């Protein structure tokens, strides 16, 4: 099973700033996913990141707000730009290793925006 290292584990940020979250996988994977989990809510898919192509964003999420990089098959970053308190959430990266349909998750980034 894939082992995913996600950092930072938590951060407290000021309104208007940006934060970049990193996700490193110990094996090569085709698809990486970024989810947001607001307090007491379900996980909402932000975007799917494939190596060598632009990320595919879900309805309600745009590249200007959540730019994603996927430079190779083991690494991805998600940036939360121009943050507001409404961006306070847990952000999770995940991978579908080998197309076996189950997801492996990083430990999450707890973001608080003041």
């Amino acid at each position, binding site marked *: 099973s894939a082992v*995913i290292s996600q950092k930072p584990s938590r951060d407290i940020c000021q309104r208007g700033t940006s934060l970049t979250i990193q996700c490193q996988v110990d094996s090569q994977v085709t698809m990486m*996913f970024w989810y947001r989990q607001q307090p*007491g809510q*379900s996980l909402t*898919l932000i975007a*799917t990141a494939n190596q060598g192509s632009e990320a595919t964003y879900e309805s309600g999420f745009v590249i200007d707000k959540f730019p994603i990089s996927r430079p190779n098959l083991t690494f991805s970053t998600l940036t939360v730009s121009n943050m507001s308190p409404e961006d306070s959430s847990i952000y*999770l990266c995940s991978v579908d290793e080998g197309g076996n*349909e*189950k*997801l492996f998750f990083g430990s999450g980034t707890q973001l608080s925006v003041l």
Partner: protein
Amino acid sequence: SQQGEEDPQALSIQEGENATMNCSYKTSINNLQWYRQNSGRGLVHLILIRSNEREKHSGRLRVTLDTSKKSSSLLITASRAADTASYFCAVVGGSYIPTFGRGTSLIVHP
């Protein structure tokens, strides 16, 4: 929406008792999965049941799927304090990307 909805939202039981959580969904699925989340951290995959399966077991976990009722249940037998966590169902349809419900918060009292 493919999103599953768990019921109950919260469940509190004593150690040794069984815990049952339910998940309902609205459209056809390829498979349904259950995940566990401890203290708002990363999710851990527990079990996957395909649309042509009715029941699966994994250790103390039993999952059932009723596609006619569009529902699934997760049973944890002989619960332990360490089972305290949030449990999410995720439905997988044509996009092959799991869509998660809001979860059931389980507390097991020692």
